């Protein structure tokens, strides 16, 4: 058996707090093949972002760890490019310059000036940002900023693309546009992707596998759902697809039956707790 592309083994993490250590994750095990699109889904505060940050190298796991292409991950690096939730573009640089900063850093000495320019423009073209590449972040919309953020990450030619709720801050229509763009890009590049999402439709539409996480503290992987739908996928055709709706209800069941959550910050999600299972307790 060949070794997996990316492997998480027994990952757990504790954060020190004034009232003692807080255990966010425990025993997270996951194997990801090259070219797979994985979604991490779960209620807020369940440690999805923590998993992503450990793979990115921004956090150090307390126990266990991540191995990418046979090498242990212990610091951040461009081969694990991150698309941040709030785009994280440098506000004083244009879209082009933002991508350029990454390209110059990653391909210094490997690409000539002309090749770099072509590569930057190619990536901005992939996300359909050619028309506004010399605009600064405050001159473009939220969706466009996120496109540039994706272009910057793609331009690093990462072996894993990490996306932290990339479309979370966008309105529904813009989000749909970006999801379509992302599928289009995936069909060409076939990157390995780990994406965090809150959105069940997004997870089913985009992913090869959906990793569902239990509620924190000491969150871990609850279930993994393999989404066996033909690509290219179209949101319109899938809307009436029985398989699609089955996957969708699987995820919904996991989130709202098995992992009910009392969330005081979001009154809409408030559910009266009757049976008190151990992993549903809120942090005091």
């Amino acid at each position, binding site marked *: 058996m060949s070794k997996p592309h990316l492997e998480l083994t027994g990952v757990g993490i504790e954060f020190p707090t004034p009232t003692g250590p807080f255990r966010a994750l425990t025993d997270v095990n996951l194997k990801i093949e090259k070219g797979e699109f994985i979604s991490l889904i779960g209620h807020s505060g369940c440690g999805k972002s923590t998993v992503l940050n450990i793979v990115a190298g*921004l956090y150090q796991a307390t126990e266990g760890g991540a191995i990418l292409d046979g090498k242990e991950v212990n610091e951040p690096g*461009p081969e694990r490019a991150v698309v*941040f939730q709030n785009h994280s573009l440098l506000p*004083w640089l244009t879209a082009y310059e933002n991508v350029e900063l990454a390209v110059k850093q*990653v391909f210094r000495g490997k690409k000539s000036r002309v090749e770099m320019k072509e590569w930057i423009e190619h990536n901005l073209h992939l996300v359909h940002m050619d028309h506004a590449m010399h605009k600064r972040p*405050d001159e473009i919309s939220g969706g466009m900023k996120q496109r540039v953020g994706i272009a910057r990450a793609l331009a690093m030619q990462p072996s894993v693309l990490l996306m932290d709720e990339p479309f979370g801050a966008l309105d529904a229509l813009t989000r749909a546009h970006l999801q379509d763009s992302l599928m289009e890009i995936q069909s060409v590049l076939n990157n390995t992707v780990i994406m965090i999402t809150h959105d069940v439709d997004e997870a089913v539409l985009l992913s090869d596998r959906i990793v569902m996480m239990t509620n924190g503290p000491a969150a871990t992987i609850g279930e993994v759902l393999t989404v066996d739908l033909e690509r290219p996928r179209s949101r319109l055709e899938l809307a009436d697809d029985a398989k699609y709706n089955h996957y969708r209800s699987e995820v919904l069941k996991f989130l709202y039956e098995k992992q009910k959550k009392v969330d005081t910050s979001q009154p809409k999600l408030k559910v009266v707790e009757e049976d008190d299972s151990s992993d549903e307790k809120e942090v005091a």
Partner: protein
Amino acid sequence: MNIAATIQKPFEPWIKLFKGELPKQTIASTIKAIVTPMIGILVFLMLWEVGASRVETSLGTFPGPKEVYVQAGNLVADHNRLREKEAAFYQRQEERNAKKLEKNPDAEIKIRKFNGKATFFDQIGTSLITVMSGFIIATIIAVPLGIVIGLSRTLNSALNPVIQTFKPVSPLAWLPLVTMVVSAVYVSDDPMFDKAFLNSMITVTLCCLWPTVLNTSVGVASVSQDLQNVSKVLRLSWFTHVLKIVLPSSVPMIFTGLRLSLGIAWMVLIAAEMLAQNPGLGKFVWDEFQNGSSDSLGRIMTAVLVIGFIGFLLDRIMLTMQKAVSWDKNAEIR
């Protein structure tokens, strides 16, 4: 926006009014923009006139606006007279030398410098040079210091008490120390700088360092975590990180600090010049005070207004630069 435009900004409605290039719909708002400050100034002038006429000093009545107007005219006239004298002096000297050379081509020619008293406008020039030298030196020290402090939490907690202690110190407290140190250290037969100039300048530097240090360090320390993560993912070197992420991100704060610093520098300068006898506006005020003629108070009041107006212009220039370099165009800067 260029500097001239920003300086003009408060006067824009006036300029437009004089040029007669106002569209009708804005006339009402422009009249408001002109009339309101106009009323403010007029009320102030009236109160000043009435109040001043009731204050009797040993040098006569406290100068009102009329007296100041007269003295301002005198200062301009003094300046022009002295410049004419100077021109005449050099002309006479040249003629004399030319004659000498005619008689004897090998004659030794002496060129004497005109040794007139510094006029009010020369003194403004001296003050500006002194304040800018002090401010530039302070900037060169304060910005890198602020960056280093902002990058390190340890250094920040180590140095913060020191900075907070020195920040409120008056220039008058520094000056004696500076004077003694300068006269002990700066010993030269042919000094490039006047000691009075050095004393004033160093005092200005010491007093205006702190706002820039503090603001720069706060700006550097508050670089957003997201941008720092970007830097980590890209594995930027320390130097590139500072240059590409930290510096641009804290530029607005740095300029806020610089603007505060320049304001303090200008305020401190007058006091420093007064005590150090640097031939600038501070010395002008002091000399007039010592002089004690019936014109003195009027001249000092003129200087007060000029000092205020120059301070205002300096602040406008800094504001322009601050706006020009700020990447956050939504932030309201005023």
